[in-house]
């Protein structure tokens, strides 16, 4: 699937890859502890074994139909996301920091969204500029004063993380709307266990397979207070032509809930029902994988055929829970991202455990002039851009491109942020020449329910398969890896 979100690029400076932090091997050539088992195993492996297993994996993936659609490529139809058979390994100690950081971040995101649609203290305190919210197309005035069960807005978050050195993890991006990719995390692990039982027997890898179970519990825990003790949850998908459709069906299957499309639902007297072979059945929780804009043609885009007329009104009446809530876009906007450290401190009174990538907000005059001056060294992103499109990687761009971008930047500075080019960490990866380091990022998935926050150990590692490439986005040639958190 194209990870529908934004993300994704990171950047080595003009710096060569050898300057990047390699997660397996230190600069003096020594293998780091977490990778010792993998290293020993690799050394004992017959030469073409990895290639054989790689092909086997591809056959399996194709047969189970884990494909994604690439928008704008008519004949491409369904493509496989390349899968790299070498796992990415994280120690329990490292993971502990990341996990705590993620939980903190998601608590902050929820508190912030509640505040924006409620008392707006953070705006009154002058920490987040008002126009950033009120002029933002993803701000939903319909949500003003709206109560949501247990004050949870972001039930499922995908927080993109990059690593710069042994101790530093940065949050690259928050995805608080409909983050995708979790099915790959789960399928990658299944395939790895099938292909390399021996390698698993040498490690104690924290399991991820309970994710669907956790997700279902999370969804049921946030049912409307009026729902029965065994609420009905469904997964709302745009349908088979959506790039993430495989994931939708995979999750519905593993959760044991109906995979519905807009036409399967209807709203009567502000209550949502699905059409079944036994007549209408009430729906309490909708895990929706449709953007706000398309949810309800009566409330949002009138031309949308994907949504359910009246859904928003049922939601406002408190008769159905949407996960994630409507209007969470104001939390994962790239411009808002830069305020996350202040947001965390403001609501939680804590220092952020996970740092942000230093970010220049082009809306601020000083920042803008810095960015214009140093544009050749920076990555400039459109605030609302997604999928690695609409961005400038300074060190990789020619003079013309830069000049064009500079003009765009001056015309609408509020549309842009800029970040330094970072040396993103690398992991050993199977490529044509053999095993070589490639840049990776990590998307862990954070679930927030009534009683607790849970993070399945690891997440989805995305890898830029092209040498030196920084784009780990699946729509631009990125692949995935299984991610292991070792039990200490």
């Amino acid at each position, binding site marked *: 699937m194209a990870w529908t979100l934004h993300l994704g690029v990171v950047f080595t400076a003009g710096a060569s890859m050898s300057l990047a932090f390699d997660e397996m091997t230190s600069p003096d050539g020594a293998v780091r502890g977490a990778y010792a088992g993998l290293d020993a195993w690799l050394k004992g492996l017959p030469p073409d074994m990895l290639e054989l297993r790689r092909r086997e994996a591809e056959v399996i993936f*194709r*047969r*189970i*139909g884990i494909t994604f659609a690439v928008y704008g490529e008519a004949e491409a139809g369904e493509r496989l996301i390349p899968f790299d058979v070498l796992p990415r390994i994280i120690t329990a100690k490292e993971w502990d920091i990341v996990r705590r950081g993620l939980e903190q971040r998601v608590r902050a995101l929820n508190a912030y969204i509640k505040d924006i649609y409620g008392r707006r203290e953070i705006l009154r305190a002058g920490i987040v500029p008002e126009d950033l919210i009120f002029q933002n197309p993803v701000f939903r005035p319909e949500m003003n004063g709206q109560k949501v069960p247990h004050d949870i807005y972001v039930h499922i978050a995908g927080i993109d993380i990059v690593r710069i050195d042994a101790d530093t993890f940065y949050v690259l991006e928050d995805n608080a709307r409909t983050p995708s990719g979790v099915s790959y995390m789960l399928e990658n692990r299944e395939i790895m266990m099938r292909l390399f039982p021996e390698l698993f027997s040498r490690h104690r890898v924290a399991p991820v397979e309970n994710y669907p179970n956790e997700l279902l519990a999370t969804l049921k825990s946030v049912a409307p207070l009026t729902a029965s003790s065994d609420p009905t949850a469904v997964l709302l998908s745009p*349908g*088979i032509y959506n790039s993430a*459709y*495989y994931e939708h*069906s*995979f999750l*519905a*299957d593993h959760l044991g809930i*109906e*995979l*519905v*499309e807009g*036409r*399967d639902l209807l709203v009567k007297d502000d209550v949502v029902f*699905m*059409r*079944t*072979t*036994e007549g209408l059945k009430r729906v309490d929780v909708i895990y929706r994988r449709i953007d706000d804009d398309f949810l309800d043609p009566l409330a949002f885009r009138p031309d949308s055929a994907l949504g359910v007329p009246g859904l928003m009104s049922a939601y406002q009446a408190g008769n159905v829970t949407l996960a994630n809530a409507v209007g969470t876009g104001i939390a994962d906007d790239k411009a808002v991202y830069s305020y996350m450290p202040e947001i965390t401190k403001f609501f939680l009174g804590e220092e952020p455990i996970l740092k942000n990538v230093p970010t220049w907000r082009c809306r601020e005059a000083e920042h803008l002039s810095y960015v214009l001056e140093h544009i050749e060294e920076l990555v400039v992103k459109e605030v609302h851009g997604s999928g690695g499109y609409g961005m400038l990687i300074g060190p990789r761009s020619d003079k013309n491109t830069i000049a064009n971008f500079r003009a765009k930047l001056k015309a609408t500075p509020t549309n842009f942020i800029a970040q330094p080019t970072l040396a993103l960490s690398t992991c050993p990866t199977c490529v044509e020449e053999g095993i070589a380091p490639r840049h990776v990022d990590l998307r862990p998935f954070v679930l927030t329910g009534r009683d607790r926050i849970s993070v399945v150990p690891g997440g989805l590692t995305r890898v830029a398969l092209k040498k030196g490439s920084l784009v780990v986005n699946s729509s631009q040639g990125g692949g995935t890896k299984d991610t292991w958190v070792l039990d200490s």
Partner: protein
Amino acid sequence: MLSRTADNLYWLARYVERAEYLARILEATQRLATLPLDYIGSSNEWASAVATAGCAGAFYAVYEEANEENVTEFLAFSLNNPSSIRSCFEAARTNARSVRTALTVEMWDAINGAWIELKRFGNGPTNRDELLRFLRWVQETSMLFDGSAYRTMLRNDAYWFSRLGVFMERADNTARILDVKYHMLLPEPEHVGGPLDYFQWAAILRSVSALTAYHWVYRDSVKPWLIADLLILNDQMPRSLASCYSNLVDFLDRIGEAYGRQGPTQRQARAIRTRLENSKMDSIFQSGLHEFISEFIADNNRLGAAISDQYLN
């Protein structure tokens, strides 16, 4: 379950069943058409194949003449024909993707594997050997899918709706063969059947894969009225109208029981089955085989519409 899911399962099963039926018709026609003219007379077997496939209208809108090349292309590979084998597999996979959650891995594997394999046949085989292999493969795929469903699905409404699709399609297919070939099955006591007719009759039996079954059931040489009996009234024969309807009644009853409610579909199916049970070939011939078949096809279509109304919309 979602009405849309039931609808997809039902049509998925129908498309796979239809693909198999087309493959059997093409195979039987191929065999008949390669016989010397003395054996089969001057009738155009390819035209009759188009008619039994139920797409004569669409065919003659594109082609002037029904010959081996045109008919094979149209029934097996054309994407302009929504009922070609290839279109059936495409539609089956689209349906399967929409109901991934209601299929077992084995069923998905069968249908997705077939769809991938189909691409390897490109625009169709270039010679008869290849064509025959293709047609066999289509039949095997259908059996694989059907067998996977039978062996792996939970016995709940998902399974029952998929079975309804199989038997509705099968009843329609058998009835259509009878509709096109009925004139060959009329009893003519003075006419014992020359070699010419034998091959036509054998082809009918082949197209419902019942040539061997015939001999086991009747222990007699091939006689047209017995063929009619086998295809219409004989409950032992899995493709007979009677067998299809005892299955349809059975599965509709299970659905009705599970949902605690009977409806028009249960009543209609039972009425059709009762008529088949109470019929004798003699009386069918007397009141007109063709009329009987036409009426059956209309009834079957009405039941299809009723199933849609009651469950699938």
